[in-house]
C-alpha cells in the first residue's frame, strides 16, 4: 500500500532543499560583502593606529620637554 504522506514529504523536502540553496547563495553574498568591507576597513584601522601612536608620541615629547599644557 502506498503511503499517502510520502508524496507530501517529498514535496516539502524538495522545497527545503531549494530554500537551503537560496539561503546558501545569500549567505555567500553576505560573506563577500563583509570581506570587502573588512579589507577596506583594515586601512582605516591602520590609520587609526597611526594616529594613536602619533598622539602618544606627541604627548610623550611634550611632557618630556615640559611644553605640555592643560587643555583650553
Amino acid at each position, binding site marked *: 500500500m502506498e503511503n499517502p504522506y510520502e508524496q507530501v514529504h517529498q514535496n516539502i523536502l524538495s522545497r527545503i532543499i531549494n530554500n537551503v540553496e537560496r539561503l546558501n547563495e545569500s549567505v555567500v553574498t553576505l560573506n563577500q560583502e563583509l570581506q570587502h568591507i573588512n*579589507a577596506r576597513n583594515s586601512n582605516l584601522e591602520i*590609520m587609526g593606529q597611526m594616529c594613536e601612536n602619533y598622539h602618544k608620541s606627541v604627548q610623550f615629547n611634550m611632557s618630556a620637554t615640559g611644553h605640555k599644557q592643560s587643555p583650553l
Partner: protein
Amino acid sequence: MAEESLERLDQEITLHLQQIDSNLSYCFSKITQDVIPHVTKYGAVCDKAMDSSNWLKVMFQHAGNLQIDSVTGPQQQQQQQAPEAAENGSLQTLFPEKSRLSPASSSILAPPTAAPHQRPAAGLPVPDLNVTTTTTGKVLQLPDSSDDELGDAADRDPTDRSTTAHSRNDPDGSTLQRQRRKRKLSLLLQQQFGSSSSSVAPSPAQIKRRASSTIDSSPMRKDLASHADSTKQQGVQPGTVIYFPTRDETS
C-alpha cells in the same frame, strides 16, 4: 492501533518539515531583505570615512617616506598578497596589499655609498626570479651577494663586471671581493634595520643617511629638506630638547 500511531507520526513529520521550511524561508528573506542592504550601506559609510580621512594617509605617507596604496583594488589581489605580507616581519607589513616603497623613496633612504653596489645587483636578471620581490628591495640584494659568493664570474652582467673588474684582475681579488661583500652586507643590514624603524627613534646611522640622501633627491624634496632641515636635525637626535615656536613667542 499501529496504523493510527503511524499516521500520527507522519503528520508530525509533515508538520516539522513545514516548520523547517518556513524557518529557512524566513531566514533567507531576512538575510536578503534586511541584512544585506544594511551591510551595503555600512560599506558605503566606511568608504565615506575612508575618503574623508584620506588626507591622513597622505600626511603619513609623506612623513614616513612610504607609499600607501589605497585598498580600493579587487579583493583577489588582496588575498593573493596577504600571505606574502605575512611572511615579511617588518613594520611596513601593516599595509599588506600595497607596494610599500616606491623606487624613488627607497633610493632616498639608501645610503649613497651603497648605490653603485646595488645597481648592478638589481640589474641581474636571473636571481630576481628566486627572490621574493618584497617591500624595499633590501632583501633582493642578499641572495645576489650569495650568488657572488658562489664565484661564477662568467654569469655576471657587464655592469657587475665594471664594478668588480679591479678586484678580479688583482691577484688578491678574492680578499678584495670578500671585503666588498662584507661591506655590502653590512650596508644592507644597516639599511634594512635602519629604515624599517619608522616609528622608533632612528639610529645615528640613519640620521647621517637622511641628511646626506637629500642631496640626491628630487628638487621638491630638496626644498622640503632645506625648509625643515633644522627641525629634522633636532628632532632626530635622541635626548635633545625640541624648541617649538609657540614657546619662544610666549617666553
